[in-house]
């Protein structure tokens, strides 16, 4: 009886590990998708409301999911609190805070960094071009991340259980 319970625990433990790993693969495409919609909101702020950047970043931060809000809130705080900081510097500092809590890869972060270099420093048309370009790049990253997810998610999910069952067989 105890053996059966033990075997059940091993299989479900390994299975849970696999599912967690699979979920990690799912987080990256989600976050990339949220980032795109956050940038879409920023675009509205810039194109129609002409809000100053700190205000625009604040509005966007309020209406996005965790952890994306850390990026926008962070940039806003840097801009408000550090004297003489440029937008690009504030944005990069915010990315440093955001990266550890995100599921993004360095190629995704690279897209964000180069977006920050143009942010705020030109007229509206240029800003909208920069936003559109960045959204397109993030979309491509998302497609790749999604393909990766489909491949790895199923593998990890099945692998977890299989390893659990294999361990049970070995232990007997």
């Amino acid at each position, binding site marked *: 009886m105890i053996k059966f319970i033990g075997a059940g625990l091993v299989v479900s433990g390994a299975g849970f590990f696999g599912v967690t790993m699979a979920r990690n693969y799912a987080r990256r495409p989600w976050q990339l998708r949220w980032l795109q919609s956050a940038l879409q909101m920023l675009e509205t702020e810039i194109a129609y409301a*002409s809000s*100053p950047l700190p205000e625009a970043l604040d509005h966007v931060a309020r209406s996005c999911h965790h952890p994306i809000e850390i990026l926008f809130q962070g940039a806003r705080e840097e801009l408000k609190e550090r004297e*003489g900081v440029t*937008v690009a510097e*504030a944005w990069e500092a915010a990315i440093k805070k955001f990266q550890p809590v995100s599921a993004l890869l360095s190629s995704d972060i690279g897209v964000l960094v180069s977006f920050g270099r143009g942010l*705020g420093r030109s*007229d*509206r048309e240029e800003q909208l071009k920069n936003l559109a370009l960045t959204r397109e790049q993030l979309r491509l990253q998302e497609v790749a991340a999604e393909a990766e997810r489909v491949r790895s998610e199923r593998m990890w999910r099945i692998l977890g259980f299989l390893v659990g069952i294999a361990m049970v067989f070995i232990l007997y």
Partner: protein
Amino acid sequence: MATLSVSVTAVIKDTTVFAEEILPFLPQPVRGMLNRIPPIAIDKLEEIRIREDQPLLLRVGDKHYFINEQGSLLDEPRECYRISNQDIQRTLQLISEGSLYALEEELRNGYLTLRGGHRVGFVGRAVLDKGRVKTLKYISSLNFRLARQVKGCADKILPFLFKPSGGGIYHTLIVSPPQCGKTTLLRDLVRQLSNGVVSLRVAGVNVGLVDERSEIAGCFRGKPQNDVGVRTDVLDGCPKAEGMLMLIRSMSPRVVATDEIGRQEDAVALEEMLHAGITVISTVHGSSLEDLGCRPALRYILENRVFERIVFLGRTMGPGTVEGIIDGGGKKLLDRPLTGTGVKGRQ
């Protein structure tokens, strides 16, 4: 002793205003240098000129100074600090809060107003759209003009502006060449008329202010940064003629004040105000009645004797000197010039 302590507080106040309202918009090396210039120079500082690849220039009173990295003022451009492209870019980011795209109107006009009513002018390459300036890019020069409100500078002319026995206020035109304190005087007039003048036993009246170039009230996001009085409504950034008519309809002012009239549509708006029984106070560029007569719209206004008091400003005894006051018929009301009450360059 008393005067000394007063001037010391004035200097301290100017230094803090400078540190809080101007320095945060300047990029690092420049900010450090300006932080070290003597307080007495800050007291008289009027302009900071930033031109790409050229020396950083300060206009203190009537003199221009270069500045070195230690913050000393120099007469000669040797060893002085030169502005880099990086400095200009950073300044632009700082004054726009990193939102150059939100400043389309300002870029088209070539200036913007900072908190505190200070003015930043800029030039660069104009981008045209159907022959009109759409925006500026490659900005190469910036000019910070420090706003100084001089409360009480209208004291000396106020007694001339009231009709006898509480009959109201005369239509008044202030005529002045640039840099003689025209806007400063108008701002103080508005403030005093709006608050009421205790010494003359006049109660305050509702004043409407059309501030087309945000110079009088120095509005920052619609809120006046200068004290323009408790009964003043400011229509910021609005064309004068249209603004005057809007104010009559919306805010029922007794007095309407505006800066630099002179176009044909202004004359039409003025007539409208007269029929509505509203007092008009305005300014115009010029130094004599003959000057004004050369401009058709103004000639029409003068020939019709719209203004009952015309105040001439000049610099014969320092900025803000009242050179003369005449009534609508051309009769002189002043026999000798009055010194300006500390308008701009205080001694």
